[in-house]
Each structure stands twice: as structure tokens, then as C-alpha cells.
């Protein structure tokens, strides 16, 4: 009984990509704009989201999805400011994927939501490999992580439409070369939107929120 080799042309992540596509079709059917925030642990995803929500609360009906390895702390923080939030406990998995998201969507009344904010699991390595079906992917980098991140984790910067550099209130205390950082980002993703912000002080939020509002309004045909 001999061994035969047969060639197979299949992409391994196609299954995820197909479900991501289905998620997006679901969002589109209810005209819900979905944003996926990605960052390393502690970069400030929840802090940025909470402040973003304050700016947009009167304009859009919002809901949140929070990916977390085990706790519900971040979803609770969203709920505390009046945003219904669903927690996805990934049970140890280091990113959200399209299947996990699709499992959480029935818990949200999407037809009553204009803006769905997704906080991915804190991780710079892999969330970019697993599309969710979101309309906008945003990477949050933070000053304490260092200015060499685009050079070390090029993939994360490639698929996103915007990079937020958070914690700029710490720039005076750390050796962070914004130009070096920005150059790396620009090489990997020419023309991508880049904003410097502080979720602590609120610095830089006006420009970022203006841009974000425009993205959402174009989608909702309110622009």
C-alpha cells in the first residue's frame, strides 16, 4: 500500500474570513458601523473607548463588545457609562476571531445600534491575522511601549486604517521619538490616519474624533 501525495490549494484562514464576511453582511443589513480596536495589553483600549463614547454618545446609538481572556471588567466599565456591552471570554485565546464575534452578535439588538465598538484582546501579535468583519480597524499604540513597535510588529500596522498614539502625556518622561515611530507606520501603511492622543488628559481627541465621526457618517450616509 503506497503513499500518494496530492496537492491541495486551500487557504487555512478562509473559514475565518468567510465568517468575517458574514458578520459584515449582518452589520450592513442593520446599518451598524463596527470598529475594532486592537492594541497590546494596557495600551489604553478601554480608556480610549470610554472617552470616545463620551464624545459620540449624543450622536449615535452605541453598543460594545469586549474580548477578554477571563474577566468582565472592561465590559462592566462600558456598561457603567450606559453602553450595553457584551463580554466575550476567550478562555485563554489571545485574540478575537470572526466565530467568537458571530457568537456574541445575537445578544445585541443590532437594529438599534449605529455604532458597535469592539475591544479586541490585548495583543500585538495575532489579532491582525483574524478578521472580524468590522468596517474600521484601529491600532492603539502607547508611548511606554517604545517607538520601535512598527519595526518589530509590522503586521499589526498594515491592515489598519488608523493608528492612535496614546499616552502622549508621558512623552516628557520617556525617550520616545515620535518621528521615528511615525516613519515606521508610514512605511508600512502609507497614508494611514495617525493621531496623537492622551486618554488621560483628553489631548488630541478633537482631531481624532472629527476624523472618526466623518468615517461613521459617511457609512451611515449622514455626511
Amino acid at each position, binding site marked *: 500500500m503506497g503513499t500518494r*501525495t496530492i496537492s491541495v*490549494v486551500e487557504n*487555512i484562514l478562509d473559514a475565518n474570513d468567510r465568517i468575517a464576511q458574514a458578520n459584515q453582511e449582518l452589520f450592513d443589513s442593520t446599518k451598524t458601523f463596527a470598529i475594532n480596536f486592537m492594541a497590546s495589553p494596557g495600551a489604553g483600549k478601554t480608556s480610549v473607548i470610554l472617552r470616545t463614547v463620551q464624545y459620540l454618545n449624543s450622536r449615535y446609538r452605541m453598543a460594545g463588545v469586549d474580548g477578554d481572556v477571563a474577566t468582565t471588567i472592561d465590559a462592566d466599565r462600558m456598561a457603567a457609562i450606559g453602553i450595553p456591552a457584551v463580554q466575550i471570554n476567550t478562555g485563554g485565546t489571545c485574540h478575537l476571531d470572526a466565530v467568537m464575534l458571530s457568537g456574541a452578535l445575537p445578544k445585541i439588538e443590532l437594529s438599534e445600534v449605529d455604532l458597535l465598538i469592539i475591544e479586541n484582546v490585548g495583543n500585538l501579535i495575532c489579532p491582525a491575522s*483574524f478578521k472580524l468583519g468590522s468596517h474600521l480597524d484601529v491600532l492603539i499604540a502607547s508611548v511606554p511601549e517604545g517607538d520601535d513597535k512598527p519595526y518589530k510588529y*509590522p503586521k499589526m500596522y498594515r491592515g489598519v486604517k488608523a493608528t492612535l498614539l496614546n499616552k502622549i502625556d508621558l512623552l516628557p518622561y520617556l525617550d520616545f521619538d515620535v518621528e521615528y515611530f511615525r516613519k515606521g507606520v508610514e512605511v*508600512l501603511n502609507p497614508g494611514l490616519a495617525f493621531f496623537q492622543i492622551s486618554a488621560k488628559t483628553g489631548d488630541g481627541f478633537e482631531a481624532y474624533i472629527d476624523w472618526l465621526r466623518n468615517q461613521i457618517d459617511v457609512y451611515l450616509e449622514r455626511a
Partner: protein
Amino acid sequence: MHELPFVESVLKITVEQAQQAKAKRVVGVNLVIGDLSSMVDESVQFYWDIVSEGTIAEGAKLHFKRLPVVFQCKDCGTKYQLDGKHLACPKCGSTHVAIVGGDEAHFESIEIE
């Protein structure tokens, strides 16, 4: 720890292909994985041994062809790999560059009996 869904997808495709080819069992699975795809070979094999149990692919050995992250300069055409510090073209210094390899996560072939 994200290799599990990845492995489940590999198994599904493997079993489908093996059945189509009327195989008795799968001996090996040859995958092409780029270094940007953030899959760790050992973890993939670990989960594989668990999820393939009781299937036509039980005991099959996974083989990985690893491909590096490759950049290409759009100005002079030079292909190069990252050193973790610079992204610009090492030959002409241009930052007009593109990632042309390293994203791969696909099958090459399966070995069946």
C-alpha cells in the same frame, strides 16, 4: 494560544481532501506558513494530535515550510528582510516599500495511503 481554530481548519480541509481522494488514512500534511502569520509549529502539532484523534488523519505528521517576511523596494526592486530596526530599503534608502511575503498560511499537499 490561537492555534486551535487554525488547526481545526487544517483538519477540516485535510479530511475533505482525503475523502475526495478515497484515502484510507492521511500520513502527512504539508503546510506553508509565513512568519507574519503568528503560528508556532509546536503548538500547531500539539493541537493537531488532539483534534485529529479518531479521524482519518489521526497520527499524520505536519510538515511546515516556513517563509520569511520579505519586503520589496518599489523604487529599485530590491527584496530584503527586516532587521527589527529599519524598514527602509537597504540599497537605496527608499521608504516606498511593500511587504511581499510572510503572510502565507496555506496548504501545499497531503500524503495519503
